[in-house]
């Protein structure tokens, strides 16, 4: 018997005891298990160049992609508005998935409802589901706004959100003046970043263009304020707060659009807050009058920015800026757009970051990195790596477009450290596995799923991305601003030092390098 009441064994130690190990071996008799030699040779073959070529010849199968579907992004954007409940029209299982996915990342509740369409709705359409669903949501959860998006089911059968919501209002599901912005978010187009874009645009359109024909469109009266859009970002909590702090220091009049930094970081104090913080609805409407709109993630906000530009805003787009130069550009653009100077306090923060890089970059310089994630995040991280003298080798985005590829290439071409790097748009983590076997690197940067690559290829994983399920609370720390770059630097350095220590700790063999000072 292995288990012990005094020191209870968890799964990771319990099943290593002899009785279980013997049981596993015995179970193979019934499994038609692959003989060990054959298994080993097949495993070795997956590490070869030949396998890589076959792997890259795939045209249809996708294995371990680093992207999700549109409605996930829709929910992400919607919860960033005051009192807003996302309502996803279509099958209900999807909503269970989005809520779980976000809760596993943020370790926070995520509220979202479904219109729970089933087979009858597939035949007759989901109008009744919309009518009943909006009424129930409104009465039960007392939202200030319900933001509607769609699952692929509703898209395939062609449900017309505009008409459905009008009918629901006519039937009294919600008051006629109640805000119900909507957007179509087919899962078979783009990815979660597309869903974010569509939803952000739809909410602005709702407020600015007369609420689906129920009010006259707002007339823009330009002011000096600016709008800020973060984009789909696993670090939204830390990043948004950091940007607000910087804007505060600069004395800027701003509106954060889609600010989910509070709803995904509520206190445990005896009260569940279904809604918390978020962009006030009045501010979302008034955002039309802003002088300019800044997006931190261009590929996440392409349609939104085009729409905003059409309204007369000056538009500035960044690619998840991380590091000294990227933050410089961001802040200088903010300063230019607002006419506010960058205060000495921020300049000192910049200096401290440069100081930290000067202190530590010797440990990162020349190290080879593989990197995957969303298009903007990979651009931001690649820029920072180049700044640190690291050498990116593989940069991959499953939801990356040819336009993204070109942008990354331009970035790489701007630095001698980028010359040996290749860019992989539209590829997945099974492709990355082949890359890591055939062209090994020192470190991999990616989300939690990267741990499978770490296991298979023995490439140390630095967890930066979305989702991060298996480490806690990192989303509370910013990557943006000089302070955020500092966090990113420390994250990378910690892994570098941990790996060096682990590699030099065999007593009497390698521990001459087990240095106390590094």
């Amino acid at each position: 018997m292995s288990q012990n009441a005094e020191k209870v064994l968890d799964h990771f130690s319990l099943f290593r005891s002899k009785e279980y190990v013997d049981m596993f071996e015995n179970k193979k008799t019934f499994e038609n298990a692959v003989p060990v030699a054959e298994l080993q040779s097949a495993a070795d073959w997956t590490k070869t160049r030949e396998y890589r070529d076959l792997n890259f010849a795939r045209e249809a199968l996708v294995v371990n992609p680093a992207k999700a579907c549109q409605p996930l992004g829709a929910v992400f954007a919607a919860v960033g508005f005051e009192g807003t409940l996302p309502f996803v029209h279509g099958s209900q299982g999807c909503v269970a998935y989005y809520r779980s996915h976000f809760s596993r990342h943020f370790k926070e509740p995520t509220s979202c409802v479904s219109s729970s369409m089933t087979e009858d709705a597939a035949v007759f359409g989901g109008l009744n589901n919309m009518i009943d669903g909006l009424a129930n949501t409104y009465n039960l959860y007392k939202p200030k706004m319900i933001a509607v998006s769609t699952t692929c089911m509703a898209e395939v059968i062609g449900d017309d959100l505009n008409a459905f919501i009008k009918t629901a209002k006519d039937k009294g599901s919600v008051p006629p003046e109640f805000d119900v912005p909507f957007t179509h978010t087919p899962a078979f187009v783009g990815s979660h970043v597309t869903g974010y874009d569509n939803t952000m645009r739809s909410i602005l359109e709702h407020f600015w263009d007369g609420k689906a024909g129920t009010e006259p469109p707002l007339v823009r009266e330009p002011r000096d304020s600016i709008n800020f859009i973060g984009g789909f970002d696993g670090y939204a909590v830390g990043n948004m707060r950091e940007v607000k702090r910087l804007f505060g220091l600069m004395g800027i009049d701003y509106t954060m659009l889609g600010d989910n930094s509070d709803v995904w970081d509520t206190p445990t104090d005896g009260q569940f807050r279904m809604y918390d913080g978020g962009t006030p609805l009045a501010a979302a409407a008034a955002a039309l009058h802003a002088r300019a709109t800044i997006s931190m993630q261009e590929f996440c906000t392409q349609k939104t920015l085009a729409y905003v530009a059409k309204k007369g805003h000056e538009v500035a787009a960044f690619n998840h800026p991380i590091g000294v130069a990227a933050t410089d550009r961001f802040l200088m653009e903010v300063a230019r757009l607002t006419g506010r100077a960058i205060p000495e306090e921020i300049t000192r923060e910049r200096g401290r970051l440069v100081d930290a890089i000067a202190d530590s970059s010797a440990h990162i310089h020349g190290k080879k990195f593989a990197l995957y994630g969303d298009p903007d995040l990979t651009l931001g991280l690649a820029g920072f790596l180049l700044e640190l003298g690291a050498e990116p080798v593989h940069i991959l985005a499953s939801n990356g477009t040819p336009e993204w590829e070109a942008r990354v290439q331009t970035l790489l071409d701007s630095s001698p450290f980028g010359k040996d790097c290749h860019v992989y748009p539209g590829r997945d983590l099974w492709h990355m596995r082949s890359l890591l076997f055939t062209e090994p690197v020192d470190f991999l940067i990616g989300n939690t799923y990267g741990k499978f690559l770490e296991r298979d290829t023995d490439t140390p994983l630095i967890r930066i991305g979305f989702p991060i399920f298996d480490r806690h609370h990192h989303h509370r720390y910013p990557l943006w601003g000089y302070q955020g770059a500092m966090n990113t630097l420390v994250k990378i350095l910690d892994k570098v030092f941990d790996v060096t220590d682990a590699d030099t700790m065999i007593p009497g063999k390698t521990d001459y390098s087990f240095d106390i000072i590094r």
Partner: protein
Amino acid sequence: MDLTLDEVKARNAEVITEALSVYPDKTAKKRAKHLNVYEGDKPDCGVKSNIKSVPGVMTIRGCAYAGSKGVVWGPIKDMIHISHGPVGCGQYSWAARRNYYIGVTGVDTFVTMQFTSDFQEKDIVFGGDKKLDKIVDEIQRLFPLNHGITIQSECPIGLIGDDIEAVAKKKSKEYDNKTIVPVRCEGFRGVSQSLGHHIANDAVRDWVFERGADKPALFESTPYDVAIIGDYNIGGDAWSSRILLEEMGLRVVAQWSGDGSLAELENTPKARLNILHCYRSMNYISRYMEEKFGIPWVEYNFFGPSKVAESLRTIAAHFDDHIKEGAERVIAKYQPLMDAVIAKYKPRLEGKKVMLYVGGLRPRHVIGAYEDLGMEVIGTGYEFGHNDDYQRTTHYVKDGTLIYDDVTGYEFEKFVDRLQPDLVGSGIKEKYVFQKMGVPFRQMHSWDYSGPYHGYDGFAIFARDMDMAINNPVWGLTKAPWNAGH
């Protein structure tokens, strides 16, 4: 102060009325049928179940795809399960359910991988059959040691008229009669995960049993062969169960489906007895095997020492004295461990009240384990139970227990707020809601990343986990001292 039974019943009835008062009339009428206070002498819990969720109420339920790919098929380790349709479904369910298995992932086993056809607009417009055909070729080229393929349909498949059965048959022929299983588990089918379980069971019947009947057995049968049905090996549950069955002298020839393989499915008709843990998700195939192959099945419950012992004896009753003695030997062997666990944790947990809301079997099955620790379950309900689940529940719950079927986010929050349990056991979507409210919580789908909870080894972990949730010092810190008076 403890309430009398009558006071409990009155309070629970009042709580239901309060919750219903917020709904529009039409919805209140519908929801009323799913909520009840259990009357101890009744043969069921007095609630309607397995009915469509009301739109817009924040049901906790999932879909048929989740029931088939996520629950039944996903854990079969040596087969590749294609999430057929857009990328999301496979992404959100990727490696999330903790179905432990032994194997070299990506080479001979594939459970924690996400294979998807990643539908694009053109696949919706022109159909996805050709893409599926090519996907099978690519799987065969890159993952040659896979023992079979399943096609897990996402919503669009059934809506655009794809013929995945034809593709499966064609490709099976091309690859030497390979097992390729089309599963019509589109998410809009049925009302919850439950229909997905049923559809997945039927797919085993039609595409594994019917087609694999002439495959030779991998082993000589013995009189003591059993199959574990309906254990998904979450955190290793099936392993901490299997070890007890083998210790009592039985031979486990198959695990459905945690750490299971295609060969185990195929060989199950050679078992003498099917032992069924999750009745909800696998009663269908158990009944089929009984009718078709004459294999009896028996339900069991491996949560907590009382139910484990009772179940070992129930299972042993199907065999000769050798096995019956084996069961007694196993029970006796683990008794000191169980005594030590209970001696350690019961004093810390005695009298604590629990509310549950989970899936297949757990809303009833875990009650005995809590009672072994001196705890009391005061409310329970099923995400996707049927009437036969609620009938079985009456063997576990006490008079006056609050019952809630397909509970909504709103109701659950209200119920917990009013009943003030010491612990809530439910899922990830509920966890942080209740923790914010200051109520200790354990995820009872994933074991909150712990486990196993089955069997004797698992009970020690279960007891430790409940203790660490309830007696966590953090619950004394939720109020700022300067606000304590308010």
